[in-house]
């Protein structure tokens, strides 16, 4: 059992390395990262200098919006490209399990999101030089929340990449799913009362806002982990269906 886990971890790492390598072999990763940094930087400075807020709220508020484009762009090729170039056949006839492949690819996407978030630390450092009354706890949980939201979006994105053989379709589909998650909390007003609770519980914002306030509640964590797991399991299922077509 433990041996098996070790083997699986090694397999996941092999896929992870290959994906990270191919991210940085293609311009897509660099372009999306630079755009991410430019936009987040602009929003940080505008709220920092204009509104004179000495926290990262401006930044934290805009990042989920940037995610709408950033994350589907990262995940669109993960599986769709392997299908369109035929390398899928190579990949799945290696002695790796489908779930190991999906996990490795997912973690590679997540780490790219992590890199993007890490760069925004520059703004945080600026803040520590000039700001007063910095709420370190809120900043830490803010980042954690953003990583979890990124995790949900990336899981949705890799699922979309698995259902189609076309990267553009994967991007659009990914954008739509992520957009629905993104909007749910914002349209709550239009939702009939008896459903509002459910919709609110499914919406990402609701859980994110809890965490960003500095409260790490296990209910919120369970929500994020569940949604991520559901999308990843669906992705593995979609890969298995390929065999039966």
């Amino acid at each position: 059992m433990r041996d098996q886990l070790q083997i699986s971890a090694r397999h996941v790492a092999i896929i992870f390395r290959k994906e990270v390598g191919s991210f940085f072999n293609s311009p897509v990763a660099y372009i999306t990262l630079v755009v991410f940094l430019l936009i987040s930087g602009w929003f940080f400075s505008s709220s920092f200098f204009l509104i004179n807020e000495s926290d990262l709220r401006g930044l934290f508020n805009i990042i989920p919006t940037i995610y709408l484009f950033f994350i589907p762009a990262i995940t669109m090729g993960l599986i769709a490209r392997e299908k369109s170039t035929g390398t899928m056949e190579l990949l799945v006839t290696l002695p790796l399990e489908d779930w190991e492949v999906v996990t490795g690819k997912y973690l590679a996407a997540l780490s790219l999101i992590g890199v993007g978030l890490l760069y925004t630390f520059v703004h945080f450092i600026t803040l520590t030089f000039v700001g007063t009354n910095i709420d370190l706890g809120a900043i830490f949980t803010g980042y954690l929340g953003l990583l979890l939201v990124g995790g949900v979006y990336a899981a949705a994105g890799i699922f979309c990449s698995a259902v189609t053989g076309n990267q553009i379709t994967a991007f659009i589909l990914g954008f739509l799913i992520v957009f629905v998650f993104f909007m749910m909390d914002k349209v709550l007003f239009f939702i009939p009362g008896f459903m509002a609770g459910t919709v609110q519980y499914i919406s990402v914002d609701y859980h994110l806002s809890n965490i960003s306030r500095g409260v790490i509640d296990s209910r919120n964590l369970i929500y994020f982990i569940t949604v991520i797991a559901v999308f990843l399991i669906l992705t593995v299922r979609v890969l298995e269906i390929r065999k039966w077509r």
Partner: protein
Amino acid sequence: MIRVENLTKYYGDVCAIKEVDFTVHDGEILGFLGPNGAGKTTTLRIITTYLAPTSGAVYIDDLDIAEHSAELRARIGYLPELNPLYSEMPAYDLLVFAASARAITGRRFKEALGGVMETCGVREVLHRPVGELSKGYRQRVGLAMAMIHDPEILIMDEPSAGLDPNQIAEIRALIKELGKEKTVIISSHILQEVQAMADRMVILNKGQVVADGTTTELMAGFQGKAQLTLEVKNATEDSVQGLAVRFPEIRVQDQKLQDGVSRLELEYPTGQDLREQIFGYAVESSWVVLEMSRRQARLEDLFRSLTVEEGGALA
């Protein structure tokens, strides 16, 4: 031993293969032959677990591939049709990737790399992205990837497609060499290729096995036609017609050349040799025989008769 039992595969409503049955013995090179669309790729994809059959099963050493999938994949080296590779990766990285997925690292990888560099001749392109390589070198890299773990079973889908004649000769020699120790399946739609490499062949047509055996075995059961070409002088109209009357099994076609020379094309079922009688008849009719040549029914004729649609455009 690989046992393919009753494989049937439908893509939606399209039946790609139907009740395909054959066996590959250890250390044998099996040629998997068939025209385009016969179902070769589909069958190989099922054996390598890329696809699942609609019904039927494949056993490798009595283990069902559906149940022991990963374990059996570890023992197979597979070169898919069209040799898909990650084009932005250098050959070296590809080999590292394939090897590590098969738990070959460190010193064992160095040894394995030395081995495939030798057999597949990829040393000089090791550090170039495979997308920039010529087709022949890409094929070698694909083969090196399929062989990095020294698999006991090697499955190659049209390994020589798109190569130049020199490269084809090289790859055939390589496969023959590999076949001394490994169990090999190669698919091809070219008969000569299979004949040159394989110990035995399975011929597939429209998704069904139409022949299975060695060249000799296949020819033994085949009633083809032998052809005899005669060039004779002084052959009268009557004497040529008389030939067909004397030997009803012979089909005669004649053609007048200049200077009283005629060319006769005779066709009769294989399995008998009529040259002596025909020569006797020529002497009897005072023909001057200038040339007599025979063409035996060959494997090509068998292949054509098995795979060409009756009454179709190609017949």
